[in-house]
């Protein structure tokens, strides 16, 4: 990932905000008594779709794929975790937002590690000219 401060802070802001928003939405929508697996799958899908549109907004300031890919993963994970959690226990919107924000931060760390493993020269063949 980009290690210029502007983009590091931008990536953090994007993922924490998306995680918090999707997490809040998941606990507001899902009530205790829902089937846990159904809640998880539905909120995961909703989180993924909504986070794509949220990412478009952050992408204007902080980049394209570098914002949209982790942003969408955050939406998916936040929706999944809070959907499942909300079906099992009573959570407030603030708790949902806080857990979602932590999820966003954790996802970003995972993406930073994945990027560190994948970036760089992938193919280099003998120059035949």
């Amino acid at each position: 990932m980009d290690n210029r401060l502007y983009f590091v802070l931008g990536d953090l802001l994007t993922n924490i905000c998306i995680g918090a928003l999707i997490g809040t939405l998941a606990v507001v929508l899902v009530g205790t008594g829902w089937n846990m697996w159904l809640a998880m799958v539905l909120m995961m899908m909703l989180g993924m779709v909504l986070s794509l549109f949220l990412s478009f907004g952050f992408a204007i300031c902080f980049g394209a794929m570098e914002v949209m890919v982790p942003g969408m993963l955050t939406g998916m994970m936040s929706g999944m975790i809070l959907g499942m959690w909300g079906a099992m226990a009573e959570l407030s919107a603030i708790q949902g937002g806080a857990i979602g924000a932590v999820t966003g931060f954790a996802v970003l760390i995972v993406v930073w590690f994945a990027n560190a493993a994948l970036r760089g020269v992938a193919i280099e063949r003998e120059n035949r000219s």
Partner: protein
Amino acid sequence: MTDLVTQRKWDKAAPNFDLMAGKGAEWRWEPHKQKLFANMRGKVLFLALGTGLDIPTFPPNQDITAIDLSPEMIKHAQDRIDDYHGSLTAEVMDVHELSFDDDQFDQVFTSCTFCSVPNPIDGLISLRRVLKPGGELYMFEHTGSRYFPFNVMMKLMTRVTEKLGPSMDRTTVENVEEAGFDIVKVEHIFLDVVKTIKARAPM
């Protein structure tokens, strides 16, 4: 015949294109594009000029012919074209129907182009035709990913984004090989999604 549907889509996008693509993405990618474009030499074809956001990262004093499918995009690029220190001409042209002679260019450069070309392999074959034997193809592109969960997400993203413009799950490196180029170097910029590709037309 020019792809009018795609042309209209980009004509419509032209007035707001700089807002969507000209801030975060360009700031982020600028150092990588500068490094790639520093390889420009000889007679250069630049594919899909858009509103000319890449022009400030071109090295000066080059001989560049740029094309774009959208007349509106080129209209919006005009100030940047005028500001370039070197020879830069822009023409409206579809990559599938290049009107240039065979073996005319030493190099072809693309920048986030093949996510939007409707028939990417045909487009690449077209580029190979206008490149001299042994000519170089340099690309800055985003593609799909080979790795879970990124590959699944890119496919889902494509269902939305291709209605607005680009696809997010292209297999551009494989397409370049399928079009008959020899891959020289692929460098990943972000995950295996944003990358630079250097390829060579066969001798």
